[in-house]
C-alpha cells in the first residue's frame, strides 16, 4: 500500500490536474489579452486587463509545459472531477481580477460573483448601470460567457494535445447529459466538432444581429452571450433596450439553437438516420417552448395586461425562451406579471435545454425520462410482474439511468431547498430567496422579486453572493461533479 499523501487530504494526482487547469487558464489569459487590445484601442482599462494577462499567460504556459511529460499518465475519475471543478474556480477567480483592478467592483466577492456568473453563463449581474463600463469590460463579460458556453474544459480537450484517458474523464465531468456520448472514436475530435458547431453558430448569429440592426460591436457582444445562453448584455435594459422585433427574433433563434444538443447538429449534418436520442429530445424541447409560450400568452391576455395579442405573444415567447434556455435576457419585466405566470416561469427555469447544449437546468431528456419512469411506477402498482423498460424512441436506457435520474431529481431539489433556506437566513423574502437560487442553480440569471427582471442581484447580501456563486458552479457542472468533492470518501486518502 502506498503511503498516505497527507498534505493535500484527498489522494489526487496534481501532476495531471495542474496541466488541465493551466490549459483552461491559458484560454482565460488569451481572452484577457484580447480585451487588453480592445482597452488599448478604446477608452481605457488598459492596466486592468494588461496586468492579469501578463501574470496569467506565463503562469498558464509554465503549468501547461509541466504536463508535457505526463501524457500517458492515467487519470482516475476523482482526478477528473477535481480537475474540472478546480479549473472553473481558477478561471472565475482570474476572470474577476479585471473587475477589481478597473474598479467596476470594490469587493472581491462582487467581482467573483460577476465572473462566475459569466463563465457559468448564468447572466446574473451586480452592475447597476452597464452602459457606464468601458468597452473592454463589456467585452470581457461577454467573452467569459462565450468561453464558458460549451465549456472551458471542452475547449481544452479540443485544443490541447490529446492526453488519452485523461481528457475523456474531464470531458465527461464537464459536459451535461445522462449517458456518456461521443460523436467520434477520439474524444478530442468530438470536442473539436462541438467547438466547430459553436463557432459556426456564433458566426451566423453575428451576421444575423448585424442585419437585424445592431452595430457590429453590439452584435459580437450579444452573439457571445446568446449562443452561450448566457444573458449578459451591453445595456442595462438588456435586449429590451433595443426595442426591435428583428433583434428579439434573432435572439430567440440563437438562444433556442444554443439550447439544442450539439450532437444533434452533428448527426443531422451527417444525415444519419438514427438521430436518437437527440431527435426526440429536441422535439420535446421545441414542444415545451411552444406550449409554455402559449400558456404564458394566454395568462397575460386573460389578466388583461394591456399589451394586446401581438405584444403578449412577443413578450411571452421571449421570456419563455430566455427562461427555459437559462439565458436571462429580458425584454419585459415578467416580475410584474400575474402570480400564475411568474410561477410558471419559475418552474420553467428547472426544465433547461437539451443535454449536451449550452443551456442550464435539469435538461429536457431527464424530464422526459422522469415522466416515463413516474408513469411506470404507477403502472407497476397494477402489474407488479411487468418488466418495465425506460425507452425513448426505441432507445433503451439502463436501470442505472433510471436510478440516476431519480437521484438527480432528489439531489437537485434538495440543493434548491437548502439553498433557499440559506438565502432566507440572509434576510431575503421567500420569493426572492427561492427565485435567486432557482435562477443561479439553473444558470438562468434574473429571478423574481428583489432579483427580478428589472432588478439586479445587489439586493443580495455579501454572504448570499458567495452562496449563489457556488450554486452557479454546481448547476453548470450538473451537481455530481462538484458534489463528489464534498463526500467524505473523496477526502479519505488511499481510496482510488
Amino acid at each position, binding site marked *: 500500500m502506498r503511503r498516505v499523501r497527507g498534505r493535500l487530504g484527498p489522494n489526487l494526482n496534481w501532476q495531471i490536474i495542474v496541466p488541465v487547469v493551466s490549459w483552461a487558464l491559458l484560454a482565460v489569459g488569451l481572452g484577457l489579452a484580447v480585451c487588453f487590445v480592445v482597452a488599448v484601442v478604446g477608452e481605457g482599462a488598459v492596466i486592468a486587463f494588461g496586468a492579469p494577462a501578463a501574470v496569467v499567460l506565463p503562469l498558464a504556459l509554465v503549468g501547461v509545459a509541466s504536463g508535457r511529460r505526463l501524457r500517458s499518465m492515467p487519470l482516475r475519475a476523482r482526478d477528473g472531477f477535481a480537475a474540472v471543478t478546480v479549473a472553473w474556480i481558477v478561471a472565475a477567480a482570474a476572470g474577476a481580477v479585471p473587475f477589481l483592478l478597473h474598479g467596476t467592483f470594490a469587493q472581491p466577492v462582487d467581482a467573483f460573483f460577476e465572473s462566475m456568473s459569466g463563465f457559468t453563463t448564468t447572466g446574473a449581474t451586480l452592475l447597476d448601470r452597464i452602459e457606464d463600463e468601458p468597452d473592454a469590460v463589456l467585452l470581457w463579460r461577454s467573452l467569459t460567457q462565450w468561453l464558458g458556453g460549451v465549456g472551458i474544459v471542452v475547449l481544452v480537450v479540443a485544443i490541447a494535445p490529446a492526453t488519452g484517458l485523461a481528457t475523456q474523464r474531464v470531458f465527461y465531468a464537464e459536459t451535461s447529459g445522462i449517458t456518456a456520448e461521443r460523436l467520434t472514436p477520439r474524444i478530442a475530435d468530438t470536442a473539436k466538432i462541438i467547438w466547430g458547431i459553436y463557432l459556426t453558430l456564433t458566426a451566423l448569429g453575428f451576421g444575423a444581429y448585424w442585419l437585424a440592426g445592431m452595430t457590429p460591436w453590439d452584435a459580437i457582444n450579444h452573439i457571445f452571450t446568446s449562443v452561450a445562453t448566457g444573458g449578459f448584455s451591453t445595456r442595462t435594459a438588456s435586449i429590451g433596450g433595443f426595442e426591435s422585433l428583428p433583434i428579439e427574433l434573432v435572439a430567440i433563434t440563437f438562444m433556442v439553437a444554443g439550447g439544442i444538443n450539439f450532437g444533434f447538429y452533428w448527426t443531422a449534418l451527417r444525415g444519419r438516420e438514427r438521430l436518437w436520442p437527440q431527435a426526440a429530445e429536441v422535439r420535446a424541447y421545441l414542444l415545451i417552448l411552444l406550449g409554455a409560450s402559449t400558456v404564458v400568452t394566454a395568462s397575460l391576455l386573460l389578466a388583461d395586461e394591456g399589451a394586446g395579442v401581438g405584444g403578449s405573444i412577443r413578450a411571452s415567447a421571449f421570456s419563455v425562451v430566455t427562461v427555459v434556455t437559462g439565458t436571462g435576457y429580458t425584454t419585459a419585466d415578467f416580475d410584474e406579471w400575474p402570480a400564475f405566470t411568474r410561477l410558471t416561469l419559475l418552474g420553467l427555469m428547472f426544465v433547461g435545454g437539451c443535454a449536451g447544449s449550452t443551456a442550464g437546468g435539469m435538461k429536457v431528456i431527464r424530464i422526459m425520462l422522469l415522466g416515463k419512469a413516474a408513469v411506470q411506477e404507477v403502472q407497476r402498482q397494477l402489474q407488479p410482474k*411487468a*418488466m418495465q*423498460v425506460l*425507452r425513448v424512441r426505441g432507445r433503451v436506457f439502463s436501470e442505472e439511468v433510471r436510478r440516476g435520474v431519480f437521484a438527480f431529481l432528489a439531489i437537485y431539489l434538495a440543493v434548491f431547498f437548502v439553498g433557499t433556506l440559506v438565502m432566507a437566513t440572509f434576510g431575503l423574502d421567500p420569493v426572492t430567496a427561492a427565485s435567486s437560487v432557482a435562477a443561479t442553480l439553473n444558470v438562468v440569471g434574473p429571478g423574481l422579486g428583489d432579483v427580478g427582471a428589472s432588478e439586479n442581484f445587489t439586493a443580495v447580501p455579501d454572504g448570499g453572493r458567495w452562496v449563489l456563486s457556488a450554486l452557479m458552479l454546481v448547476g453548470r457542472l450538473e451537481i455530481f461533479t462538484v458534489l463528489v468533492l464534498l463526500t467524505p470518501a473523496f477526502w479519505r486518502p488511499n481510496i482510488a
Partner: protein
Amino acid sequence: MRVIVIGAGEVGQHIARTLSSERHDVTLVDADAARVEALQGELDALVVNGNGASPKFLRELGAGGAQLLCAVTHSDEVNVIAALAAHQLGTERTVARVRDAEYFGDDDSFARDELGIDFVINPERATAEDLAAAILLPGAVHVEYFADGKVAVAESIVTERSPLRGQPLGNRRIVKPSFVFGLIRDGRAIATEPGHRPKVGDHVLTAAAREDIEPVVAHIAGRANRVRDVIIFGGGRIGLPLARSLQTTPGLRVTVMERDADRARRIAEQLNDTTVLHEEGVGKEALVAHGVDRAGAFVACAGDDRANLLAALHAKQLGADLCLSVVSREEFMPLVDALGIDAAFSPRLVTAEAILRAVRGPNVHGMYLLSGGAEVVEVQADRGCRAEGRTVAQANTHALTHVTAIVRGGRVLIPKDADRLEAGDRLVVFNTRQGLAALDKTFDAAA
C-alpha cells in the same frame, strides 16, 4: 441421392430417418461418440463420429460427390462453416440451420448468392411466422401461403357453430371461390369427397386466394372474432420473434410471460409495444392473474414441451379462445388432440419441410407437412409435361394427388375437374402419400 447430415440431434435424426425412408443414402455425422454409438443400429444410415465443420473430414466423407449437405448442429457457426466447406468441395446443394437472426436477418440472399449456402433455415423463426399467420387469420389454426403469397391453405377446426357440421361438403355454401380439399380426423389426413360430412373436432383444409381466405375460414369455423389479446407463454427463440411480428398489428395487445428474469428484461428491451411479464408460475392462478381466461389467443412456446402442453391445457380450460402450442418432440404430438389444444407447431416439421424441398429439387416451390404423413406442395407444370393440356381430373388420377389451386398469369383459380392445365401453371397440390414420384412424372418435363 447422397445426403450428408451434420448433427444427430432431434432434427438431424428426423431428417436422416425421413430421407432414408425415401431411399436416399444418408450419412449422419455427430461429434459425440456416445450418441453415434447409440444411433448405429437405429437408423438405416451410415452414422459417423467426427467434426462436421472440418473440411478435411468432409473430404474424407466424400462431400464432393454428395448431392445434399444438411448442417443442423446446435451451433450456428459449425453449420455455416460446414455448409461453406461442402459448397467449396463440390456438394450440389447445402442447407444450414442458423437460428440467430443476427447473422443474416430476414434476407438470406447474401448467404445464398455470396456464400453459396442454398437454404438458410431458422426453424424457430419460421415457426413464429406460422404462429403469427394463424393468430392473424380468425378461425384458422394454421395457415400456409403458396405461390408468392397468392394462395392460402388454411386448417380450421369444425365447431358446434360451424355450418359445415354434419352437412355433406358438396352442399356447402360457397362464400368466395374456395376448395375444402382435405380433412384431418383422428390424426389422419384424407382427401375430401362431396359426400363427406365433417364432424365437430375435425380439422378441414381449405384453399383460396389470399384475399378470399378470411371470409371463407370465418364461415367454416362459424366465428369471425379477430384476436384482440394474445398471450405468449415463453419469450425464447420463438416467443420473441412472434411477439415482435404481432406487436405491430393494430388493435392487438401482445403479452409475453417469461420465467427467467434476465431474459424477461432483455426481451422487454427489444419489444416496444409488448407487455413483458416476469412470471415463474405455470399454474392456473398465474395464468388467470394475467388475463389468460379472457385472451383471444394463447401460445405456449417455452423451451419445454411438457410445460407448453400443461400451460396450453390450463389456458384452454380457463377459456382462452385459441390455444396453440409448440411441440418439439414427436412423441408428444398425440397429446395435442387428446388435451383439446387447437394446434401444435413444430420447429422440427418446419426444418423437415425446408430440407425436403431441398431434396426434391427445383420444381418444388413450397411445402407444408401435415400430421399423418400428408403434405401440400407447390409445383410448376412444365412445358411438355404429361399434365399439359389434360384436365384437372386426369392430372389428379395420374399423380394420385389433388390439385387445389392454380395460379395462372398471376391470377388464382380454384379448379374444377374439367379445367385444363397449361404449361407454366403453378399448382398447389394436396398429396396424401409420401414421396413425389408420381407427382414428378406428371408435372416435371424432365422426369
